């Protein structure tokens, strides 16, 4: 059996769904970051697949950009997470409620 575009897109969609569920359900901030990475990479898979399918490299280029931006985002996010952990000793989402309206 040959891998077609649809296989990649289904993989992308499944990954995205997993990431989305993770974003919605996880209470640990670290796990939330993992879920976000899954979301981003799900999109990357889709982009690369369509780019290959259409013979247009723009999609792959965008995938690279997204990887780079995701890396920097994680770097900043983990930095904040460490500071938060040092100050409170916890990384539980339910206790981060200082923005209550």
């Amino acid at each position, binding site marked *: 059996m040959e891998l077609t575009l649809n296989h990649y897109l289904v993989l992308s969609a499944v990954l995205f769904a997993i990431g*989305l569920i993770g*974003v*919605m359900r*996880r*209470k640990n901030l670290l796990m939330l970051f993992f879920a976000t990475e899954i979301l981003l990479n799900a999109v990357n898979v889709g982009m690369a697949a369509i780019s290959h399918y259409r013979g247009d490299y723009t999609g792959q280029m965008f995938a690279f950009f997204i990887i780079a931006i995701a890396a920097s985002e994680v770097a900043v996010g983990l930095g904040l997470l460490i500071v938060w952990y040092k100050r409170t000793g916890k990384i539980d*989402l*339910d206790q*981060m*409620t*200082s*923005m*209550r*309206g």
Partner: protein
Amino acid sequence: MEIYLYTALFSPLVGSLITALFGASRKTYFTGILASGLLFASFVSSLILLTYVMAGHTVHVEMMTWIATGDLYIPFGFVVDQVSVTMMMVVTTVSTVVHIYSIGYMSHDKGFNRFFSYLSAFVFSMMVLVMSDNFLGLFIGWEGVGLCSWLLIGFWYHKESATWAANEAFIMNRIADLAMLIGIFMIYWNLGSLQYDVVFAHISSLPMPIITWIGIFLFIGAMGKSAQFPLHTWLADAMEGPTPVSALIHAATMVTAGVYLVVRANPIYSEIPDVGNAIASLGAFVAMFAATMALVNRDMKRIIAYSTLSQLGYMFVAAGLGAYWVALFHLMAHAFFKALLFLGAGNVMHAMHDELDPFKMGGLKTSMKWTWILMTLASVALAGIYPLAGFFSKDLILEVAFVEQHYILYTVLLLTAGMTAFYSFRLVALIFHGDKRHLEHGIHPHEAYTFMLYAMAPLAILAVIAGMVFKTPYYQMVTQLLPAVQYHIHNHTTFWIMTIGTQLFVILAIAYAYKKYAKAVKVDKKVESGFFYQLLYNQYYIPKIYDEVFSKPYLQLSKLAWKQIDLRIVDATVDGIANIIYQTGEKTHTMQDGNLSSMLRWMVIGVVVLLVLAVAFTAGYNAVNLRAM
């Protein structure tokens, strides 16, 4: 000559602007003297222009372009010709006198500086009105004098009645001005120009109904400004303003603007004699109508105001019958003696501490000798006794009516002349003769400042000589522009019977007034409670009728609009929108609970909703467009 034209026109404006700078500061005589001085400069310039025009020239300047769009071209143009120079002389003479007089009259008033600013602004507007060489410039001056009239009637704005009268005058004039604007639009629509010379040269090429409508609409404008029936009620109420204002604006100049308009537009009215007859009939009606109200009124200034109204009626009779130069001549003569009468009344008011009821005065001739002489002189001139101004101008209008064979008009005007004499001398007799009734009210009268009397002197001289001396040179000058029609009664016997008869009739009326009021004033209860007396005393109930027919329903309508439409519909809609937004916020703010996890959930829901919408709309759009293709 242009420099004189500009001086005559703009020095009142300069005076007004400079005094306006001091409007809020304390009283300084400097402002009054400056404004009067600049007015005098304007007067001298007008006099020089008069000699120039008398020599047979005219001045026509185009100062600058005003409106130039497409085919519409209207310059700020000014013309000094035989008609406008007459008006300029009247305006500047009377206003100079009134300015100087006001320095004394207003000397105890807090708003002294403000008063002079308004008064000079009025003179400027009036000069624009009479000097403009097109209808739109005339309209600007027309509105300008209306505005200044409003400011000056309501000068004592803390008085409820004054502000009410000011608004009444303004609103009534707006109604008439609308008609006048329509007339001006019609002229432009049909002739493509508003310049007098172009319009008058081509007016006869228009179809008859259009000329008629133009004439009617312009005359409605004139009716408002000149307070002709049925737009007359504002003039008597305008007496709430300071007396010099009544003398200048509501007797000598502004109210005659309507007559000026008809005289100026004489080529239009010459085309439509039927409208002219209607104007003359209305004029005669107003002359009598106003004179009857003056017979019984108990307010000194209102009596003189009704007299003004009546004399304006005379002028419209002359103008309507095509005797334009006679109308303008009576306008001039009337301005002099009526201003004099008002200024005299101002002296009396000051002496009487603003008491206006002549029945509470009496015997003032001992304490106010000069005012008595001046007012008697003015009244004699108004009554038309030979050889004062009124004889030459007013009796000429009677002759016009007779020669033109409008015998009904003639009879009405003759009766009115008798009434005029009666109410004028009723006033003089009540104020200056008889018992000193004012002593009961603890008032000790004193004569006005000497310089005020000197200021009035030029008017007194003019009231005496204006008819006798000016008539011939004036006729020669003004008929270069206006139709030169001599109104002579060819039959000598008829002429003498008429002249002497009129004089005798007038003198009898005067004698009757003196007999009835000069000694003791007996109040005849039976007459006073009679129907006619009450009818006249209440001004034919017209103010009441207007109140019932127009004011009160309008008030009801306004209340309805306020309570039902504004509060219930407009306000409710606005409040409703605000409420919906507020309630939405109130209901949904719990969403913002600060929990990152739940916010992320909301975000996901939002993305899903947007996605669904995007897909749905794209699908719908494609469906519609593909079908169309």
